[in-house]
């Protein structure tokens, strides 16, 4: 079943729980209701054949409510159709996401990463250890309100951090059709 037909099937089965669908250059996305997300993802796996979770990630839309957005990239491997479907839902701060590690065991590491980098916790994930940073690091560094240079921290005999010297940075490029002289990374005011 193609990704387009999968979305139609989801809409037929779950009705209003599929809030919005998008198509961009052959990529199909369904934005779904948070409460029904786990059920919909289970349906994708068991009925529609999306047996492979490529990736699970989170987006920090700081300043808007709800703040978090969860993204699930699904793929059909076993039936040979190679269809790619994306499921998204939003999540307010302070609420836990539903773990999908019962559906795809690979989700454990992805969810640990989402927890490590953004501090999103998962209902049903047995193992909330850090995966990239070390146990005891006090911050969630991929949040938008965390400075690029980092914050000082100290874990005796494990690790420490200091603020990195940005030396006038961050140095960023801006999209422009001007010459490379204008395009090259510079320190710019971030408004």
């Amino acid at each position, binding site marked *: 079943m193609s990704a387009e037909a999968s979305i139609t099937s989801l809409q037929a089965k779950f009705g209003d729980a599929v809030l919005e669908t998008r198509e961009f250059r052959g990529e199909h996305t369904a934005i779904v209701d948070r409460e029904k997300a786990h059920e919909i993802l289970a349906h994708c796996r068991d009925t529609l054949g999306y047996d492979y979770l490529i990736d699970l990630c989170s987006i920090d839309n700081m300043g808007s409510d709800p703040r978090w957005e969860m993204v699930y990239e699904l793929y059909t491997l076993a039936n040979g159709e190679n269809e790619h479907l994306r499921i998204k839902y939003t999540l307010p701060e302070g609420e836990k996401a539903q773990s999908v590690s019962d559906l795809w065991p690979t989700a454990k590491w992805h969810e640990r990463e989402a927890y490590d980098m953004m501090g999103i916790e998962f209902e049903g994930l047995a193992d909330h250890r850090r995966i990239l940073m070390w146990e005891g690091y006090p911050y969630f560094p991929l949040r938008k309100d*965390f400075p*690029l*240079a980092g914050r000082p921290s100290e874990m005796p005999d494990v*690790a420490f951090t*200091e603020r990195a010297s940005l030396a006038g*940075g961050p140095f960023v490029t801006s999209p422009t059709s001007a010459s490379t002289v204008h395009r090259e990374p510079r320190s710019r005011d971030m408004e």
Partner: protein
Amino acid sequence: MPPATAPEEQIHAAYDSKVEGNIIFTQVDTAINWMRKNSLWPMPMGLACCAIELMATGASRFDISRFGAEVMRFSPRQSDVMIVAGTVTYKMALAVKRVWDQMPEPKWCIAMGACASSGGMYRSYAVLQGIDNLIPVDVYVSGCPPRPEALLEGLMKLQDKVQAEESAKAHFKAEKPS
């Protein structure tokens, strides 16, 4: 009576093996440093792409064994010089320090490449801004990553530095009662 010395032998008048046999005169410092600098065994601390250049330096085209440093020891207890090749993250930093602490004296450190020297382009929360925040560095090699020639020049600079050390003199100074 030996025959008159041929002109080409007179050039080597400073050391005449016929007269002096297997004896040379030197200073203890010079001899020790000469031995040390020509058998610097590296501890390869390959952490990123610099490690690929480090491997190239060890391979036949650049051949680090020309400088007596081909014996890559993966045990810190047998190493003389730690070549920190790559980005040192905070998570890795204490492991680097621990390996460094296990190396016996005398020991030296080469910070290879921009990341090991200063954090390089990684001005970020996760990266130690230069390995010299943790361990003393003798030679910094610039480049991102440095070419093998650059690392070899760094090694030669380190050899010059080792040759200039007061290895024995400092030892005897310490022994002398004050």
